[in-house]
């Protein structure tokens, strides 16, 4: 797959555990996927599945102890600080919590111009770019002089998106960017992600626990379970007709907003659970 922007190849991430000779905790157990330019790859899983760790490994915030992460052909999994800094105009991030991802004592203008000024962009060009970014994410003019606490959760997430876009990256790692938002805000922010992608051709690694969110935005979807990818393929296929037993469970566990269909889904889920239990007993294997 030479055309891929990012290739994650059999990556292992291990966190050391305190204590003499305690084996390290394996958060990722050999994970492989790839992202093409302009594509959204959804990463679904429950808490502790390793989905956030994979995102952090791509950003250089988690220790990669095996395998390789290749960005446009070169291995970025063991870059030093200088190499990472150079890469920061290529790969960016939007975090889950819009309340802690913005420094509370800096104004929006300072937050957005910070990545620019460290690159020796002149103050005037930087503030022009800030105005442009605010417009791009649909925030009102004059927002640059205000502090993060003056904005709602949805607006803060727009600010975080603007910060990620400031250096015109080719890939943005989105770590549960809409989970903390209200339903209607969530829909609008997801639309913003989509519009920006169509406009700029940026690729997303979109991490979420919500199959519906991932389905809405992703071209391809990977499902993670206990530090491994258990299902990986076309978004419609994975999110509507899953094949792996775990994805099937995940799919049926999410309640549908329709009392009649939810009753049906509940019955399906209980039947599936029963089947899987029987299979497990017969095979003696753990599903």
């Amino acid at each position, binding site marked *: 797959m030479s055309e891929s922007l990012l290739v994650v190849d059999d990556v292992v991430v291990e966190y050391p555990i305190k204590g003499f000779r305690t084996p390290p905790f394996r958060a990722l157990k050999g994970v492989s996927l790839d992202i093409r330019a302009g594509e959204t790859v959804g990463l679904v899983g429950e808490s502790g599945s390793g989905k956030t760790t994979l995102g952090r490994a791509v950003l250089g915030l988690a220790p990669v102890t095996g395998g390789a992460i290749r960005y446009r052909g070169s291995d970025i999994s063991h870059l030093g600080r200088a190499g990472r800094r150079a890469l920061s105009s290529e790969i960016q*991030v939007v975090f889950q919590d819009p309340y802690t991802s913005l420094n509370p004592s800096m104004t929006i203008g300072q937050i957005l111009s910070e990545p620019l000024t460290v690159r020796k962009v002149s103050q005037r060009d930087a503030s022009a770019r800030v105005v442009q970014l605010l417009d791009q994410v649909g925030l009102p003019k004059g927002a640059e002089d205000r502090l993060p606490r003056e904005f709602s959760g949805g607006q803060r997430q727009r600010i975080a998106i603007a910060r990620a876009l400031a250096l015109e990256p080719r890939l943005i790692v989105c770590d549960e960017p809409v989970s903390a938002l209200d339903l209607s805000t969530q829909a609008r922010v997801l639309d913003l992600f989509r519009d920006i992608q169509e406009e700029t051709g940026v690729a997303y690694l979109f991490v979420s626990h919500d199959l519906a969110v991932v389905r809405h935005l992703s071209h391809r979807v990977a499902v993670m379970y206990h530090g491994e990818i258990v299902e990986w393929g076309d978004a419609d296929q994975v999110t509507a007709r899953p094949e792996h037993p775990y994805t099937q469970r995940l799919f049926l566990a999410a309640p549908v907003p329709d*009392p009649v269909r939810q009753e049906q889904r509940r019955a399906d889920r209980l039947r599936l659970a029963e089947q899987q239990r029987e299979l497990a007993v017969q095979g003696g294997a753990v599903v």
Partner: protein
Amino acid sequence: MIDPNPAPTTAAQVVRVSLFRRLLKHPTGLTAMIFLIVIVLSAVLASVLAPRNPDLADINAVLANPSLAHLMGTDSAGRDVFSRLLFAGRFSLAGALLALVVAAVIGVTGGLLAGYYGKWFDAVSSWLTGLLMALPGIVVLLAARAVLGPSMWLSMGIFGVLMSPAFFRLVYASVTAVRNELYVDAARVSGLSDARIIGRHILTVVRAPAIIQAATIGGIAIAIQAGLEFLGLGDTSIPTWGSMLNDGFTNIYTNPLLILWPSLAIGLTCIALTLLANAMRDELERSSSKPKRRRGAARAMVSIEKEPVLVHPEVVTEREFGEELLKVSDLAVGYDQPDGSIKTVVQDVSLVVRRGEVHGLIGESGSGKTQTAWSILRLLPEGGRVVGGSIFFEGTDLAHASEREMTRIRGKKIAYIPQEPMSNLDASFTIGSQLVEPMRVSLGISKAEAKKRALALLAKVGIPNPERTFAAYPHEVSGGMAQRVLIAGAVSCTPDLLIADEPTTALDVTVQAEVLDLLRELQAEFRMGVVLVTHNFGVVADLCDQVSVMRDGRIVETGPVKSIFADPQHPYTRSLFAAILEDGEARGPLVEHAVGSATSVTPTAAPREGASS
């Protein structure tokens, strides 16, 4: 090139200026500051202000009383006390400042580096800090004097090193707290160097507490320095407050006034520094002052204008409900504001819950759904209260019931399941004791019987090994298990009404499904009425019989779940339904329009050679 750093300095100024301004409005802070400024100025301008040479001994006027010639009298060598006091201020303050600077430089730098980088530097510096704190300061100073001679500067420098752990620990704690904040991660991803991240994102956090600490340590340094001089361990060639104290003490019987002046100088300076530190802490950590509730307004009700609510008619279902358990009419909830007004967050809310019925309250954040639930339990946060309407439960109006009545009802008749299972279990008690204790109190049964019941309940809520969970501490179980424990606790006294506040929001989807199943089973078995607060339409569809849609503290639409989901009427309800993604089309595979990459767009089989292990 334009200087890339103008912004951070302005940011720092904003904070500092506003702290300074706020101190000006703080009476204690202002007094302390003025006093300290006077002291510092008098020391700096000593050579101008002092009427005489502080070292000039006048044999004719030994131990003279205050007079026009000698404002504060003279000491045992006939030197003018007032002049000496001014000059001594120079050395005492400079000595304290030296100790302070040494302590701050070592402590803040060490704390920043150890907190930010961790690893070996962290281990070594923490060990050194421990060692320094274990050393008895006075003994070290005495030993240093014996070896290095009587120099005030040297002993204050050493004292500064001894005091550095105070700064180190403070800075270390603040840095480790913010090091893993997401905005520091974001700064790292933005390509900022470590020096810049520390300077810009971390130092700002440390600055305020360090300034407060500096004021405290300055006071201690002055006191210790005076103590050393008083003991006669200082440098006798320079005037200090401590040496004047020593002189006064020797002559306490001949001229008691002599001891007063240096004592006042030392005492007042230390007090001013401490008060200033307290004032700064007050201003920086200012929590909004408690709203003053005027006596006359204590039971004030708020008149609420009514707005029409869309009510869907009753439909016949196979589910049967009993008598009315809870009847909320025209409820309004408000918070007392500092200026005496009331801010209403819930208004004009009416709902009925019958036995065996699940009533969902759905809305976005700030819609007042949780406030409504809390007001039924009368567990509103500080300052909040029911300001209108009534909440009838089994013939009692909970809006006006006494605290004693509420205690009788809560837990026994109305139970509560919170959103965050972990923070609602006390980490220092076992799960078992947290289940047993309420049952003993509200059911009046013995400990052994309560334990038997608790174990049965744990088994009932689907905990695989009840004995083990009973003996476990909350941190030893998962979030889903903790929620099951709380549900077990909620139903332990067979309540009639259950208030569930986002009971599955903090849980994974698969765990959520199981907890919803459990709630459904228990609700049917005990025929409880349930008020379920949620923002998830799927949860409402799964569990509820009735649903009320809330916005801005009001119910906009209410009725049986099936008819609202089939035919939402209110524009707001419709907009919420429109925002649901569940039924949306998948985005489909990537259509590549870049030149030369028009290859197969469907992904190939999962490339996980190594993942099958």
